[in-house]
């Protein structure tokens, strides 16, 4: 037993095993089992450099074109920039061919705090328009972006049909929240999108993920342990 512990190969295995154990317990497991927000799509992300206000007057409507509504888009998240005011009321309408969902949220709204509008997602993913109508009697400034990093996406913002310089920042969220481990299948399906041939088959992605999670440590540790064994064989 003592001589086995003295062997360089055993000591290398001990060093590798301890390192991996500590990382699993202290980092990997907490990271993978923590509940996270489930993002169902980001038509326009929050600004990267500077906030811009998309001003929506009472009765007016800001619409984003070519928004993809996926089958798990349960919430529309957006923010306002104006100070909390009474008599404010926003209505969100998600519409696509054969699909229309609306949700209303009365003010006052805290500036920059996210507002959530609950909608029923479509049965199959659709591309359509997302409109935010000001149903109140006071102007509402929506958080928007005009910077070169975040305002270059597909959707174009129009207010009452007229294209504006700023895009409204919008996220679509799923209420089906959970940890990465619990949602691994969904994440793999998402990763398979826009990949050609073999790379786009979820089973192949699953295999690649498993190969990475098991194969990388196994191959690396095996290489070290076999090198100590072969070194010893050569010495003998």
């Amino acid at each position, binding site marked *: 037993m003592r001589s086995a512990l003295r062997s360089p190969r055993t000591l290398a295995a001990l060093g590798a095993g301890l*390192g991996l154990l500590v*990382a699993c317990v202290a980092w990997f497991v907490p990271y993978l089992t923590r509940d996270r927000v489930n993002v169902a799509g980001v038509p326009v992300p929050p600004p990267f450099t500077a906030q811009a206000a998309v001003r929506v007057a009472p009765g007016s409507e800001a619409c984003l074109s070519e928004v993809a509504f996926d089958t798990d888009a349960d919430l529309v998240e957006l923010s306002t920039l104006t100070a909390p005011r009474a008599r404010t009321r926003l209505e969100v309408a998600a519409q696509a061919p054969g699909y229309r969902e609306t949700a209303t949220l009365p003010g006052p709204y805290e500036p920059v705090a996210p507002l959530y509008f609950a909608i029923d997602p479509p049965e199959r993913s659709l591309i359509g328009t997302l409109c935010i109508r000001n149903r109140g009697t006071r102007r509402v400034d929506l958080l928007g972006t005009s910077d070169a990093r975040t305002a270059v996406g597909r959707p174009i913002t129009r207010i009452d049909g007229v294209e504006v310089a700023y895009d409204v920042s919008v996220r679509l969220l799923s209420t089906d929240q959970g940890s990465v481990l619990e949602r691994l299948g969904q994440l793999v399906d998402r990763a398979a999108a826009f990949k050609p041939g073999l790379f786009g088959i979820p089973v192949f992605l699953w295999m690649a993920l498993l190969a990475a999670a098991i194969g990388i440590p196994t*191959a690396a540790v095996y290489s070290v342990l076999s090198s100590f064994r072969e070194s010893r064989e050569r010495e003998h």
Partner: protein
Amino acid sequence: MAIPTRARRRSPRPAVAQLALKARTLPRPLVALLAMATIQVVAWMLVLPPFQGPDEDAHFAYVQHLAETGGRPGAPTSGSRSYSTEHAEAMKWADLFVLRGVLGARPGWAEVEEQRWHEVEASLPEEASSDSDQNAAGNNPPLYYALETVPYHLAPGGSFFNRFYMTRVASAVFYVAAVAFMWLIASELFRPLWARTLATAIFGLHPKFAMVGALVNPDTLLVLIWTVFIYIGLRIVRHGPTMRRLIGVGATAAASLATHGRGVAIVPALVVLLGIAYLRWRPPLRQTLLVAAIGLGIATAGLGLAGVFTTGVSGEDAAYGGVLGWVDDPRFNIRQFLSYVWQFYLPKLGFMQPSIGVAGYGFNEVYIQSFYSGFSWLEIEYPRFAIDLLHVATMLLLLGLYTVAVRRLDAVKRSWPTTAFLLVTGLSMVALLHLSSYTTMLTNPGDPLLTGRYLFPLLSLLAIGVTVVVTALPRRISAFATGALVSAGIVLQLSGLGLAFVRFYA
């Protein structure tokens, strides 16, 4: 007539059998490390959405332009379309424009977006693949992009994303080849098999290099070229210059020059290598002249090739304009430059002016933070504690190297050609990076144009340094340290992949 012809044709079977036999003689640790490197690079390729690495959009646009038109794209100031229509439409429908470096963005994954893209792709005219005119990477020399046109044309099916992923696969091959050459370097320097394994594992498990290896980016080829150069250089200083080695070292220098502007740093390393080879082996004058002519001649041919293909060798918008701009820049001030270099690594001394550039951007940001971390477009970072641990580990490594050098001064003196060659090769790249960074900051102090990724051609030196320190430890401690270091590499690799997977798809 057909029968004798058939009889003369050599059957491929013996060749395959011979190859299989050769593969069987490969050391098991090397086979395991190559398998590990392949798994890693494939995983990174699949996890990172298209164009989500440093300038990958520009590099692919260069490949596409070259493959479709046979010519290089224009310099960044020469036109308005940086992508072909096909490329731009693909990025639009997969939500890839906004994804670049923006943590809050996600790629498109809805089935309808993919369907719409297929419809758009089918409707595009032929010229939609070749109508880009300018490119942010347009000044780069052509070698990498020219090689990438081969997989681009070989892509089955011909769809845009097929061609894109095929070019990524080709880069991945360069990455795995670099790992194999690291093994050869380690075999040249270290006798114990475990030390060779450790050096190669340090190189292969570097998380950010594995990420870059999975991208369309000339940096991967540059790393391969420098790793090959260092291997052949070591053979020359340790075993003497032969014709094959000289052609090899000249060809790698030429390839470096024809791959990237930063590749020019290989020239001083080559000159010093030839000098060391002369001092160490003292060949006769005629042979010396032949040696110099072969090495430098091939390298000059590479320089000429890059210069002819691009807009010249020096000056603005030229292949090496960015890295050699300091040569004819009248604002270049040697005192200011030295002060900048000092303050990059060490605290400012009382008599010094504040350094040019971004305050606080120095050793930690380049040699630690963006060297190990900063995946995708730099937006994916390891947690603070991991960066701090890597900083401590780097300091320990430097301390260890100093201790080994002092304690084994005689051995260092005896192997001066090897030490000098490795040191000069490293310093050559570092000096060039500082010179080009300083020159850039004379125009735009907010952009240091120096990031950890630029140091990857010297990754083999890091692996050698770590292995030198570990092999100097008492036997049992070195065995334990080897296991612990490899596990640290595995943890960094897997966590990098995990962070990227969650960032894009959660």
